[in-house]
């Protein structure tokens, strides 16, 4: 009998407290050394499937498990969780919540330390993994100062040091910028060339096109399709849409059809004139990470959706925070409707929707969320109702914000902006980790916000999203706006090129 790297027989799993099984009757054989993409919409059971392979189901999460899991031909029924680590390396979605130590070297050694290997071997393996994953320059660095992409590589190296044959990646690109995704691609490619079995759960698939051998599509907890490489890459756009998958090739994508010329009623909403940001005389520690801005000028008209792209440290977030009144400009003028607004006056008028909604929701219910803040003169219930209905949150008005889905949380944050009657909104990475359907939903929401005579800015690395939503692109480099152009079929390649190259000068090193 042939040994498979992974073999699942009739595997079903239902989390405690859930009414539906997350996965149901899964039969799956994965050959040694193959590269498998597992796709499916959010909630289709991808993550649960991966947890069956790395042992977190049934050993960590509580629920009802049935079926058998074989790894390298061995039944894992009597394995303890710690036995899985040397067979399966697991890399999870958010690199920031994966590290257990405070510095890179000890983090990479962590797995080997748990295996109780002799000290010299631990150091040797740590050194080797740093080299293999190509991050020797990160040796002995504090983990708190790394970018998401670097953290991701450290967690891969930490698994690598334990020398497993199988790797499971759960949406590894979700928190990475474009360049970091390309570097992740190189690491995956290295693992593949070493003959490791690699299983990747992903929505954004463009970087996997040249690596994958097979694609499994999950829906409602069962395997709906099992495509080989040829079949996967020849899927039509319509097929991909049905599979909730993002595109395999970015080059052929076209921007969504939209009126490029501004509508007649559109008016000058936000204008920045020679705006700079520098530290004051007292540079606070909390500001140490803030990038600088030099002489930024642009005008934005109502109805526009403007994508802001650029490398980490180019000043994208600084620009957003400055406009929102969270930072004070050291020079220049920021005005709305041609009226100059000082820092304090901008708060609320220009709204910032952060990437992590958990930081922006403070109420004990959806409805009460809108009653927070001194700006809301008495709570006008009719107005609140209208806002919540518009964002289809009215049904959830009694729920606690923490119990909402990610998309709902994001909409609730937008509700705060509508309540404050903000004319300008900045979004920070609103689509990281979203499948195609949810990404398009966010694009539609931004469009409807812009249509009501607002300006929407989006800081993003997501090319597919830029094409789906933006009218115009600002490219920031080194604190300056280097390019500012309308997004058309002709300029889309420029966007892709700018995203790919990142900045020539990486600011954070």
């Amino acid at each position, binding site marked *: 009998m042939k040994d498979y790297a992974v073999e699942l027989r009739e595997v079903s799993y239902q989390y405690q407290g859930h009414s539906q099984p997350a996965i149901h009757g899964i039969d799956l054989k994965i050959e040694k050394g193959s590269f498998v993409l597992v796709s499916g919409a959010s909630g289709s059971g991808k993550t649960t499937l991966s947890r069956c392979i790395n042992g977190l189901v049934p050993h960590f999460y509580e629920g009802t498990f049935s079926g058998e899991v074989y790894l390298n031909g061995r039944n894992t029924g009597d394995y303890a969780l710690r036995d899985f*680590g040397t067979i399966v390396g697991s890399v999870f979605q958010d690199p920031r919540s994966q590290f257990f130590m405070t*510095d890179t070297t000890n983090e990479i050694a962590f797995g080997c330390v748990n295996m109780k290997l002799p000290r010299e071997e631990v150091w040797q393996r740590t050194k080797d993994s740093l080299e293999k994953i190509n991050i020797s320059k990160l040796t002995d660095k504090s983990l708190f100062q790394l970018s998401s992409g670097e953290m991701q590589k450290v967690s891969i190296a930490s698994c690598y040091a334990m020398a497993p044959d199988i790797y499971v990646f759960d949406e590894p690109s979700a928190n990475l910028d474009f360049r970091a995704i390309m570097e992740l691609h190189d690491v995956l490619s290295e693992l593949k060339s070493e003959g490791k079995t690699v299983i990747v759960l992903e929505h954004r698939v463009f970087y996997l096109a040249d690596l994958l051998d097979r694609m499994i599509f999950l829906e409602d907890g069962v395997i709906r399709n099992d495509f080989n490489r040829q079949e996967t890459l020849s899927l039509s756009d319509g097929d991909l849409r049905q599979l909730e998958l993002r595109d395999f090739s970015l080059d052929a994508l076209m921007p969504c059809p939209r009126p490029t010329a501004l509508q007649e009623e559109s008016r000058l909403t936000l204008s920045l004139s020679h705006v700079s940001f520098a530290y004051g005389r007292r540079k606070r520690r909390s500001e140490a990470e803030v990038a600088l801005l030099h002489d930024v000028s642009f005008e934005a008209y109502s109805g526009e959706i403007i994508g802001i792209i650029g490398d980490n440290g180019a000043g994208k977030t600084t620009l957003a925070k400055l406009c929102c009144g969270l930072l004070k400009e050291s020079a220049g003028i920021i005005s709305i409707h041609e009226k100059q607004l000082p820092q304090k006056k901008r708060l609320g008028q220009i709204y*910032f929707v952060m990437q992590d909604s958990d930081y922006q929701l403070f109420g004990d219910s959806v409805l009460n969320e809108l009653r927070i803040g001194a700006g809301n003169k008495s709570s006008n219930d009719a107005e609140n109702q209208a806002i919540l209905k518009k964002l289809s949150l009215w049904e959830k008005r009694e729920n606690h914000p923490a119990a909402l889905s990610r998309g709902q949380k994001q909409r609730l944050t937008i509700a705060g902006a509508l309540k404050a009657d903000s004319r300008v909104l900045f979004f920070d990475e609103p689509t990281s980790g979203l499948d195609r359907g949810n990404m398009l939903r966010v694009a539609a929401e931004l469009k409807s916000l812009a249509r009501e005579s607002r300006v929407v800015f989006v800081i993003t690395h997501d090319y597919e999203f830029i094409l789906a939503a933006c009218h115009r692109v600002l490219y920031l480099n080194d604190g300056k706006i280097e390019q500012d152009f309308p997004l058309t079929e002709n300029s889309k390649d420029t966007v892709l090129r700018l995203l790919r190259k990142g900045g020539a000068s990486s600011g954070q090193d």
Partner: protein
Amino acid sequence: MLLLDKTKPALDPRIVGFVVILLGTTAMFMNKAMTAHIICAVAAVYLLAAKSYKPLAAYLTIYIVVALLMANVDKIHNTSAMLLIVSLSYFVQKLVVLLMMGSFFVRMTTIPYVLSAMQHMKIPDAAAVPIMVALRFFPTIREDYHSLKDSLRIRKVSLSPLQFIIHPVRMVEYLFVPILMKSLRTSDELAASALSRGFEHMNEQTILYPLKLKTLDYLVGTLSMLIVAILFYLQFK
């Protein structure tokens, strides 16, 4: 704390911990002016030896100012001001020693060696794991706090100290609940990540930074105990 330096520390972290706890506790019992001055001086010498000059200067200044006030307290005729100075001095005398020893600990140890010391001492997981997790979480809380502060400012909720006095409950709700919720989620993911890398018991791990007590360690330990014995004699004779 020196995070990354893996050069062997001059003193064994176990001895550093012992000295810190010993002197810190002793300071609590020193109620006479002379014994309090001596223990502060001893702590200052330790800090000086550790080349931690800035905290040394700061704490010593505070101590001396309060000690001078205390020495001249009989010249003040306002009873409540007197009471204030006496209680302040009582409090500050002990606090300064604790802070000095805290700085001494931070200066003399590094995280990898502190963890190693815990392994050597076979501290049970119930105590060791929370310490590890805390070391990892503390730096992120500052970041969380700043993000929360920003989003509250956009909502026009002021975060001035005054607000904490007027609406303490609301401030707790706005700041601590989100940090707690986020930490809960992170700790769940953290646990999954650590367990899937084979983490089970700290005492069954490889000790990456072996420790062995040296002459200097014994010397510092003995000297500290001797000083403490003398101080207790002076205090309670």
